[in-house]
């Protein structure tokens, strides 16, 4: 089942609440472990205890081949190790007990068509490495959903809209007011370029210079706001007609117009990203870049920000989109579950404009 994150004022309020919730409250909630999981790891550890003498150390190898989130897998493994210790089984790391007999264990977190399936393989016969006994427990996926563990996830898609060798700060695709043709606005530090679609190509139709003030920035910031018919570059704010395709008038503002739109969010320092409108499950979706610098490839990863008191405060969700260079900006569209991203492709040298669509999947 797939659904778009729906616009939801309550979620926005909840997100603001999340920003101010004490981190310890999240940490306590995240430590909660579903009873069904607890029962399952206890059952597996009991099977090991029945097959292995307490005087024989065991080694544990873990594989997660299920859809379980790595953080959940780690919690299951930690709980299982705790249960082994409760049975007085000595857990050793492979190689630390050279010369001593150990019983290798392999815990595999798997899943069937309708349940999570956790398997413990006990390699009791040192002479026959392919001989093992197996214990299996299943955990209903529905139980974990009910426990709030199995969150919906974000699927990301990217679409390349534009590329050029010169740096640009933001872009927007607009409708032409008169004929309805698509137009593309590209915001550079010194000009706003307006392109019209001609056949399959974008052709430059108009450009507006942007006044320069002070020293040029090495990390310029700029944004197009079509709803307000305006653009902003550093201290300059310019307004024009609805699609910004004709003359624009610019003024210098103090404080700079963009400053109010920036907020540092704890936990994502050193990244660029945007909160998307609406919710995915009970969480707020966000798109966040990697933490590399401008010389490295980068990615955009979906996150689900949990505004409630249960569950971890933020969790990586779905697969990241990889880019051949740094993500320079990510701006959310407040009306849809899309964002626009500007990427500097280090392989080609071009600056690229992408529309990133986040789909909430269950």
């Amino acid at each position: 089942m797939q659904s778009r994150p729906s616009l939801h004022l309550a979620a926005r309020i909840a997100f603001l609440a999340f920003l101010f919730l004490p981190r310890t409250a999240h940490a306590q909630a995240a430590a909660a472990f579903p009873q069904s999981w607890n029962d399952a790891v206890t059952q597996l550890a009991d099977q090991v205890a029945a097959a292995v003498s307490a005087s024989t150390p065991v080694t544990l190898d873990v594989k997660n081949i299920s859809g379980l989130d790595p953080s959940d897998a780690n919690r299951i493994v930690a709980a299982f190790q705790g249960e082994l210790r409760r049975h007085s089984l000595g857990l050793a790391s492979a190689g630390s007990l050279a010369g001593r007999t150990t019983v290798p264990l392999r815990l595999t977190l798997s899943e069937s068509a309708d349940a999570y399936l956790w398997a413990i393989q006990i390699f009791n016969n040192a002479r026959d490495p392919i001989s093992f006994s197996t214990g299996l427990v299943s955990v209903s996926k529905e139980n974990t959903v009910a426990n709030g563990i199995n969150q919906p996830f974000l699927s990301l898609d990217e679409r390349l809209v534009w590329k050029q060798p010169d740096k640009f700060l933001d872009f927007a695709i607009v409708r032409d007011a008169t004929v309805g043709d698509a137009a593309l606005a590209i915001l550079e530090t010194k000009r706003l370029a307006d392109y019209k679609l001609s056949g399959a190509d974008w052709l430059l139709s108009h450009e507006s210079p942007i006044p320069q003030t002070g020293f040029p920035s090495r990390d310029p910031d700029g944004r197009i706001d079509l709803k307000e018919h305006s653009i902003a570059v550093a201290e300059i704010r310019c307004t024009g007609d609805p699609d910004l395709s004709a003359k624009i008038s610019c003024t210098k503002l103090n404080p700079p117009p963009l400053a109010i739109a920036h907020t540092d969010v704890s936990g994502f320092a050193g990244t660029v990203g945007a909160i998307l409108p609406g919710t995915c499950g009970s969480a707020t979706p966000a798109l966040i870049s990697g933490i590399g610098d401008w010389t490295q490839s980068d990615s955009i990863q979906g996150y689900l920000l949990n505004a409630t008191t249960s569950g971890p405060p933020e969790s990586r969700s779905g697969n990241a989109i990889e880019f051949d260079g740094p993500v320079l900006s990510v701006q959310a569209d407040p009306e849809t579950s899309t964002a626009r991203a500007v990427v500097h492709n280090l392989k080609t040298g071009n600056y690229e404009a992408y529309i990133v669509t986040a789909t909430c999947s269950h």
Partner: protein
Amino acid sequence: MLRRLAVISLGLAVLFAAIPARTSRPPRYGGTLRVELGAIVASLDPATASDGTSQASAAKTQIDALIYANQNLDGTSTGTPGTGPFALSSWLPGKSATLKANDKFPQGRPFVDAIEITLGRAFRDRLLDLELNKTDLTEIPPQDARHAAERGVRLSQSPPDELLALVFSENRAISATETHPRQALSLSIDRAAIVTFLLQKTGEPTGALLPQWSSGTSFLFSTSADLPRAKELLAQIAPAPKFVLGYDSADPLEQSVAERIAVNAKEAGLMVTAVGAPPSPSTTKTDSTPDARLMRVPLRASQPAVALNRLLRDLNSYAPGIATSAALSESASPQIIYNREREILDAFRIVPLVWIPQVYGLSPRVRNWTPPGPGQTWPLADVWLDSPETNTTSPHIKDPE
């Protein structure tokens, strides 16, 4: 560089009216869906069993399901006309069928007006017709899926739901030592190479009777070839045994797999002779009956206990007594299902090789197609056809919406 998280304020708005978001368009009624099949179906009478290959039997089941929706408890059609989403409007046995949408179908009229089904069409012709937009839907042999994709054909692939296995017909209790030749044969088979080279990576090597996605325990059954162990087992037997391995002579995949197995077995010191055999395996033992046979067995359910019961029932038709225990309860635990699988496989009368998906080639205008799951039939009542002018579908997709 200082990189900041830009949180968009509530007032910031950028319109994306010109960007077509990936939302699903409303379905379109009308048009004729063109389907081409390789199988030759002689009769559509639901009371008549298919007398051809398993391919023909599968095709007949699919077409019958479009005409006769009501099913008996065992999954067979009741044969009541007018109950399916489509009605038969013309029928040339073995050649073609035309179906018209049933306006009174209780679950709603199908989106397409008609389906034209052409039978007995060779794969190369079907592929060419897809490329030329002369057909909308056809089956692609899994070993040809990669080739089709490279030619730009739009593909749709199911989860692996057909087991290719080697089945020994012998039905007598044998001692553990007597299973060694079979075990050695199993250990000699390079399943990964079968998938990589013969199936062009379309499939999963398996040592289990159920696919991983269904049971979740397939990983517990080894798929690795182990020639030293195979040779060790064979060293305990003298003289080295010989096997005749049968395969469906009409199935090029079975033939190539059988020949590959013969090569693998030779490396372990086993003599295996691959011989083509009639499509329908006979249970009557004669001098020419192969010792073992390659079989393609469809998964008929997703739920592992049900799937295993039905798989064993199908295998029993060729190798009676392959599973003597009572059928598993639907609520059997994973441990019980795994133990049953292990018990059957330890006798080495069945040697699982590969789980294979069903692959379909689609024309760009086909919308709303989902590859059917185990035991399901083609969802052609849900399919609709895009008009050519709004067709924007990428030619390379898997599992379309």
